[in-house]
């Protein structure tokens, strides 16, 4: 298939792997930022092919994984309201809140619907004027423009029964939080290609400079990721720390100005909690004052709701690359994909779920792997 098969070619991949292994004089520690990249790495079994030349730490860029418990609990409360049709992207449905998940709320009679675009949620609001339709706006800068568009349209069309539970996060502050931690091991980043399609990469230039790390704007197919790794390894070997663009076919330095413009007119920067990590200053997007009518937290009076996370889940240490999933005491015991404690065990992009499967494949039982 065009634009897919070309980037999954086995022979080219083997060539790139050889070049990475030849280029690396020592093992380098890289972090892929985006969950979509993690997915490709795990799905294609890339790590084992690299033979230790590169250690990949799976970054915090899975929107499912980092959405804070508090927002999940707010979603659960809204979804249980008989007056609400709660709409969400599919993979949020199984994320555990404090008590249950959205699938269980649906089984108890809550109206929870999977949509593929926030504009579909807006259509539902038009079709069901007697209901309140709430869209769960999660994700990074990639999903922000479409969500901004939905709110913009709702205001334009005067649709009063539509609102969004916003839990948007932004990438650069999270990268800074990781780099400034005293026990940071990350030496270079594969930045999230689609985030940069929207935002460009000017924000990353000061980060590369300040922390002296190479940042490679990278796509999502196997060859994209291998090429991104090669560019990062070369920079590290040569002592450079620049922002480089691997994802030439989709990303420009300025991103997509129209999308950025819309995002900044609808959203404002706020401090935001990340699941397992805690609050990161200036790392979230919330609706601007003039769009407060479309803010579900405001409309349903949820602003004051506060929830603390279970202490036994070490998702934060995993997301920061401090702890391998198998080193977590809960891993494979009280926390499995069937009964996840934290989000990295839920999402197919999550590091814990990936390790759970990988460990089983290697013939280690989950019990043996845990200390």
């Amino acid at each position, binding site marked *: *298939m065009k634009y*897919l098969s070309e980037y*999954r*070619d*086995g022979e080219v*991949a*083997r060539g790139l792997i050889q070049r990475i292994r030849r280029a690396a004089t020592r093992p380098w520690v890289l972090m892929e930022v*985006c*969950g*979509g990249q993690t*997915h490709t790495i*795990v*799905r*294609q*079994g*890339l790590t*084992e*092919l690299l033979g230790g030349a590169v250690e990949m730490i799976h970054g915090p860029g899975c*929107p*499912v994984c980092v959405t804070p418990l508090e927002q999940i609990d707010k979603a659960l409360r809204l979804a249980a309201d008989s007056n609400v049709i709660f709409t969400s*992207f*599919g*993979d*949020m*449905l*199984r994320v555990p809140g404090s008590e249950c998940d959205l*699938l269980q709320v649906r089984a108890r009679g809550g109206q929870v*619907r*999977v*949509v*593929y*675009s926030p504009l*579909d949620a807006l259509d539902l609001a038009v079709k069901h004027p007697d209901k309140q339709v709430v869209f769960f706006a*999660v*994700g*990074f800068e*990639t*999903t922000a423009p479409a969500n901004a568009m939905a709110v913009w349209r709702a205001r334009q069309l005067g649709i009063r029964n539509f609102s969004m539970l916003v839990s948007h996060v932004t990438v650069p502050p999270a990268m800074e939080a990781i780099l400034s931690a005293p026990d940071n091991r990350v030496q270079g980043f594969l930045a999230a290609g*689609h985030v940069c399609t929207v935002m460009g990469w000017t924000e990353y230039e000061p980060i590369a400079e300040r922390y002296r790390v190479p940042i490679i704007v990278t796509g999502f197919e*196997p060859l994209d990721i291998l090429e991104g790794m090669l560019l990062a390894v070369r920079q590290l070997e040569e002592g450079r720390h620049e922002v480089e663009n691997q994802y030439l076919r989709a990303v420009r330095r300025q991103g997509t100005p129209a999308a950025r413009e819309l995002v900044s007119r609808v959203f404002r920067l706020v401090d935001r909690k990340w699941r397992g990590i805690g609050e990161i200053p200036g790392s979230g997007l919330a609706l601007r004052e003039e769009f407060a009518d479309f803010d579900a937290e405001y409309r349903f009076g949820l602003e004051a709701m506060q929830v603390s996370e279970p202490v036994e889940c070490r998702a934060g240490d995993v997301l920061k690359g401090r702890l391998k999933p198998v080193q977590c005491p809960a891993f494979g015991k009280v926390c499995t*994909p*069937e009964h996840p404690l934290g989000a990295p065990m839920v*999402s*197919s*992009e999550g590091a814990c779920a990936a390790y759970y*499967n*990988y460990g*089983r*494949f290697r*013939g280690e039982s989950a019990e043996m792997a845990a200390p």
Partner: protein
Amino acid sequence: MREQPGAPGTLICPAPHPAADRIQLGHGSGGKLSAALLRDRFLPLLGNEVLCQGGDAAVVPAGPGQIAVSTDTFVVQPIEFPGGNIGSLAVHGTLNDVAMMGGRPQYLTAGFILEEGLRFEVLDRVVEAMARSAREAGVQVIAGDTKVVERGKADGLYINTTGVGLIEPEFRPAPDRARPGDQVLLSGPIGRHGMAIMAAREGLAFETEISSDSACLVPLVEALRSAIGDDVRVLRDPTRGGVASALNEIAVASGVGVELEERAIPVPGPVLAACEMLGLDPLYVANEGVLLAIVPAARAAAALAALHSHPLGSRSVFIGRVVAQHRGLVSLSTTIGGSRVVDTLPGDQLPRIC
């Protein structure tokens, strides 16, 4: 003659109107409307000597040996979809299950739950498709039942079918018979049924030309049986949960590992495109017209030739092998040479955000 309700100069008739174009609660009353429903809409299409006897139970010959029995209930939405409808699916799905255990399907029963308000034209198309599918499979519908529920209590109609097949002792494929060294065969491209249903469902913002692969697999099983007989160790139709879940079940039941070659697994372009867009893995998407066969390596070529001899199996391929390592697990060699575990999912596949 009954007076037309509401016609000028007549009284309004409170009795259900028999000439209506849709199912009414009265069709489930057991009275005249029920009899008419059976007489006008089911028996002309599905009727045969046994069914038309109208007794409380069908009495049929069953031979001296064992029988294979399978039951399945169909609640698919939408009722009609590209490549079939709930009627053809209810026949194929159940008969295929009987065939996968080595049963030669002979009989079928059908239970219908009809929702008040279901249009007769829809019901007729469904029953026609059932009749056609059963005829093609050489199977008689020997018992049936209809119930009517109030509007809102069902999605149009649900069908339960039970299939009965005769077992011949010299042909006993079973999920626990896979052995290391065996080859895994797949009879056609995967993912069509699941993606056709998903695309046809309301709310999906893309259009595709994917049609369901729903088909009766009995001829393919017959071809395998006459080619290599009981060397057909395992047969499975990878329906819900797809190829991945079916092979995981076999790996567990047989206590073996399965190794798949990603590049060997045929996925139609439109299915792949839809899966990429939604973040789904075609290995977990439902099929209704392909089978997996596990056979000893020495008989693999003969088995493949047998599958190729029927149009339904013309695109059959080897997709992997059975190994003694990683027992109970399925692994996949990826197109770029890596490997990963193909696990069973905890629930339905959920479309990803990014």
